[in-house]
């Protein structure tokens, strides 16, 4: 993969990158710290009012990257500027979390929730403490409580969905994702994941549902590689690529009526064509193995097409 050396970027590029990552909420903590230390910290005041947001971002990133010293610097600067801020107090709580002082962190969050019951981020931190302690069942209970108040939080539903999966409770995990779909019906990721879950559950009905979800995801995001592969998997091409991996899903293709079967076959051929197109654009320099995958796909197309 191509990587950027963040220690060498210009001030403006560093600033823009931090801004972009802050806005889309991506977790690239180590790199945030790098940009800060090598580029931005030369002159934080040139950022104007943006510097406080950057300091908060760097503080959280440095806790994630186990740089408690740097986090302390950020907290000190923020505290001097905003002495009575709850937002800064929350950072203090997160620092306690990072150093495994879980009870002290919880005490701070309790106080913050009391003072500002409408701010959901403090309650989320409480869940994070439980997760860090490995108390998974308590965390599930806490998120369920949280969702009674903040019903429209897809992030929380997604987290709950994953926790149920760890408990091997697929139906409940599916339910959480269905809530996500209701909240954000145009996010293809939720549909694709529902497809993945249904396919994992297995059985003819679930595989049919999986196909419907993948098709929906592709309508929203036609370039989604995972959904295209998903459509291939539910078609379950016998023979080449997946011959040893025909799981319990094999029933799916035998119970369908001939017309449905044909439709599914056509969709699979479409998906292969799209995948082949995508793989053909890859330069062997960046991915020397793409040719091998391409050959597999071409071979699968022959098998499916001949049926």
């Amino acid at each position, binding site marked *: *993969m191509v*990587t950027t050396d963040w220690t060498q970027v210009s001030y403006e590029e560093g600033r823009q990158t931090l801004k972009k990552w802050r806005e889309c909420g991506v977790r690239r903590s180590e790199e945030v710290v790098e940009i800060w230390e090598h580029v931005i910290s030369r002159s934080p005041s040139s950022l104007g009012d943006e510097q406080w947001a950057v300091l908060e971002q760097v503080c959280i990133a440095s806790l994630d990257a186990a740089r408690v010293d740097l986090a302390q610097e950020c907290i000190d600067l923020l505290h001097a500027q905003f002495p009575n801020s709850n937002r800064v107090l929350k950072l203090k709580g997160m620092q306690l979390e990072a150093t495994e002082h879980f009870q002290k962190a919880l005490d701070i969050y309790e106080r913050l929730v009391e003072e500002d019951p409408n701010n959901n981020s403090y309650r989320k931190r409480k869940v994070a403490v439980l997760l860090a302690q490995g108390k998974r069942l308590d965390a599930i209970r806490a998120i369920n409580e949280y969702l009674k108040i903040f019903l429209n939080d897809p992030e929380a539903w997604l987290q709950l969905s994953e926790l149920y999966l*760890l408990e*091997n409770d697929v139906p409940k995990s599916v339910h959480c994702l269905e809530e996500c779909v209701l909240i954000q019906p145009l996010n293809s990721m939720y549909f694709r994941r529902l497809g993945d879950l249904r396919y994992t559950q297995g059985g003819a009905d679930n595989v049919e549902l999986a196909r419907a979800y993948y098709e929906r995801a592709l309508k929203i995001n036609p370039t989604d590689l995972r959904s295209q592969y998903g459509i291939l998997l539910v078609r379950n091409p016998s023979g080449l690529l997946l011959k*040893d991996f025909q799981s319990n899903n094999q029933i799916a293709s035998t119970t369908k009526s001939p017309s449905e079967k044909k439709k599914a076959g056509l969709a699979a051929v479409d998906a292969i064509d799209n995948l082949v197109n995508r793989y053909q654009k890859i330069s062997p320099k960046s*991915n020397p*193995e793409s040719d091998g995958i391409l050959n597999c796909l071409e071979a699968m197309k022959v098998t499916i097409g001949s049926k």
Partner: protein
Amino acid sequence: MKFNVETQALPYSTIILHCLKYPSKGVFGLLIGHKKGDKVTVTGCIPLCHESTPLAPPLELATALVHGKFGASLVGVYFANANPSDTSLNMYAIRLADKITTVTSSPAILIQVMNERLVSDCDQDRLVAFEKDGDSWKETKTLFQGSNFLRALQTVIQKKLYRELADFENHLDNPEADFYNTNLSNKLVQIAELRS
């Protein structure tokens, strides 16, 4: 059968780099190698994903591709838990290992990364191997290459090469990413040779 598992420097480093790329997440991957009597030598690995609950579709797809390429050399699964102090076996890793056993009709091994040993000043083996014994998984012997090798690994980490690693999930997000990590492996071999 009590296996003796040896992980060569290249897969060993790749597994550690995979963990370092995603410090807040659990990781999964496949092991390539060969068995001779009771000795399993792991000669390569293929990083699959960075979540603790990987679902069937991407795993089936990746395993099928890898099995198509390497056949019977597919010998097992490696994984790391998300939580540093969690040393339990991941159910999803066990399932994948069972599946590989069925596909290759030869018992698959399981390698777990001991997260707490990932700190740089630890000179214990970071990997623990398991084999299936009846219905349960039992720890088995590993051959550890010792501290000299760990120093070479340290150089690799200082160069931040883990940022160049790609797993199958990265590949699905962007097919330009090579989950066999051909280029990264070449670099790792070069660094190891320079040091020796």
